[in-house]
């Protein structure tokens, strides 16, 4: 049932020249339904064009990684996927962002409803100054869940999914701010999973963490992949190769006249292809360590 819909979605998407070649190469590539479909999206802050020409498709139950140098707009693109950029008054999106076939920026779409289904984990762990329990129960509560037993169940299930339950089960009423950085980030993941989102967006979730905590979060991403679709922004290329199925490489275009920098999607494809056989020379330079 999903097949024809997905075909329509991918064929209606104009592919950048760079993608044409890679699209027919991997014969074993059988992606799930299209979750996000962006069509020549540009994002502006006021009159400044931060990112331009982003066209990509994010598939169900896959981990999609956004990589690229600083200032290339990875995070900006990620934040347009659940309308977090609405919080910045000057931000403006041009082009179509489709989520499961619905235009996210249609005037009837409520950002609240969007974010309810598309959760986000931020670069710096940002637990609320509440107890561990209240942090996880926050999402279900604001969505109307008042039943104590149900809440207990959700909290335990979410913390288990985030591989944090065993560490905190005896101190659920302690302040969440007493947790270490890695634990706090897993708590934020548990908090996101507690509302049972469809998609989890992760904005450099491991950049503030040590390698052990990073490994824990990467394991957790693998574990939850079968139930969620994940989009992750990362600076760490090894991380992208370890966790992701598909990778989008962003780069920066310098505008000499106005001295501004605009992010651009250079290449998007299977992670193995991006790292082993990139089509664009800029991608090759970046993934092999010769920055371009």
């Amino acid at each position, binding site marked *: 049932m999903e097949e024809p819909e997905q075909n329509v979605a991918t064929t209606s998407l104009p592919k950048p020249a760079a993608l044409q070649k890679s699209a027919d190469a991997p014969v074993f590539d059988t992606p799930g339904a299209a979750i996000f479909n962006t069509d020549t999206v540009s994002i502006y802050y006021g009159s400044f064009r931060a990112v331009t020409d982003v066209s990509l498709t994010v598939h169900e139950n896959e981990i999609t990684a956004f990589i690229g140098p600083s200032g290339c707009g990875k995070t900006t693109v990620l934040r347009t996927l*659940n309308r*977090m950029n609405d*919080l910045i*008054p000057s931000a403006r999106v041009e082009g179509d962002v489709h989520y499961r076939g619905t235009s996210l920026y249609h005037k009837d779409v409520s950002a*609240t*409803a*969007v*974010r*309810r*289904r598309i*959760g*986000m984990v*931020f670069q*710096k762990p*940002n*637990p*609320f*100054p*509440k*107890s561990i329990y209240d942090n996880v129960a*926050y*999402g279900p*509560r*604001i*969505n109307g869940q008042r039943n104590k037993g149900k809440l207990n169940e959700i909290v335990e299930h979410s913390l288990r999914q985030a591989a944090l339950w065993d560490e905190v089960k005896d101190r659920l009423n302690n*302040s*969440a*701010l007493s947790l270490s950085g890695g634990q706090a980030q897993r708590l*934020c993941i548990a*908090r*996101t999973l507690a*509302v049972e989102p469809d998609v989890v967006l992760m904005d450099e979730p491991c950049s503030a963490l040590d390698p052990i905590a990073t490994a824990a979060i990467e394991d957790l991403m693998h574990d939850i992949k079968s139930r969620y679709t994940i989009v992750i922004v990362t600076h760490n290329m090894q991380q992208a190769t370890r966790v992701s199925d598909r990778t989008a490489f962003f780069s920066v275009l310098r505008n000499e006249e106005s001295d501004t920098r605009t992010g651009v999607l250079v290449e998007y494809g299977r992670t193995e292809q991006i790292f082993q056989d990139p089509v664009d020379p800029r991608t090759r330079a970046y993934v092999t360590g010769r920055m371009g």
Partner: protein
Amino acid sequence: MAVAEPQQRPDLREPAGWRRTRNRIATALMVLAFVLVIIPLGFVLYTVIAKGASIISWSFLTGGPIPPNVLPASVGGMGPAVLGTIEITALATVISVPLGVLGAVYINEYGGKGLLARLIGFMADVMTGVPSIVMGLFIFSIWVLHFGYSGLAGAFALGCLMLPIVIRSSDEMLKLVPDPLREASYALGATKARVTLTVVLPAAIGGIVSGALLAVARAAGETAPLLFTILTVTAANRNVFSGANTALSTQIFANASQPYVGAQARAWGAALTLIAIAFILMIVARTVTARFTRYSR
């Protein structure tokens, strides 16, 4: 094994000379400033306690009515004034704190950089600078002239004084709430009202409450706005909404300016009572702040 060459030890002591002297001068100046600040404060406390402590008793705090000035200090008590101060200040708090906190929430969470938010912030700053006697005159002309003296009128005047303090202190507290917390809540599908009610206000509540209590303590000691609005009387008035009332601050003013020993003793006693009330409010403020911030560290 070869013996290591003797190494020249670095001199890590503070260099002598002008730099050290300057350091000492600055330290001495700071100590001097601290002493200068503490002297009047200690002297005020000492005088008020020395002159007021002897008259304080349960009957002084609760008894009444306030006797005529000529009578000695042992007669009657300041009960009506204690009652009036508590009534009027409580009513002023009920009026100004919710308004002030809502105003601060508007400035911080809803108004953004809009004209209205900037206007409210600016007017709050201007209001902070308005002399308290002008607030009293204002309420006198728009309320007392039409409805007569009452505790309510006094509460309005005190409320006008407290409002800008509450707005500004709450505003500062809301500004301190980190944006990532708001984002975390938005990312879970919360509406703006939810974010404000369940994340921003709880995170800032300790500071908001202590700011509000500071405003209360400030208002409790105000005299000028009450002179025009409650008309100092000697009998207790339990009805804060109508009829002339009295308060500790206005009683201090009325009694201290008299030549009679009894009246002056009552004024000192009232002054000590007022300081004690402010002190208790401060302690409550600290306790409340500590209690509300138990999850923030």
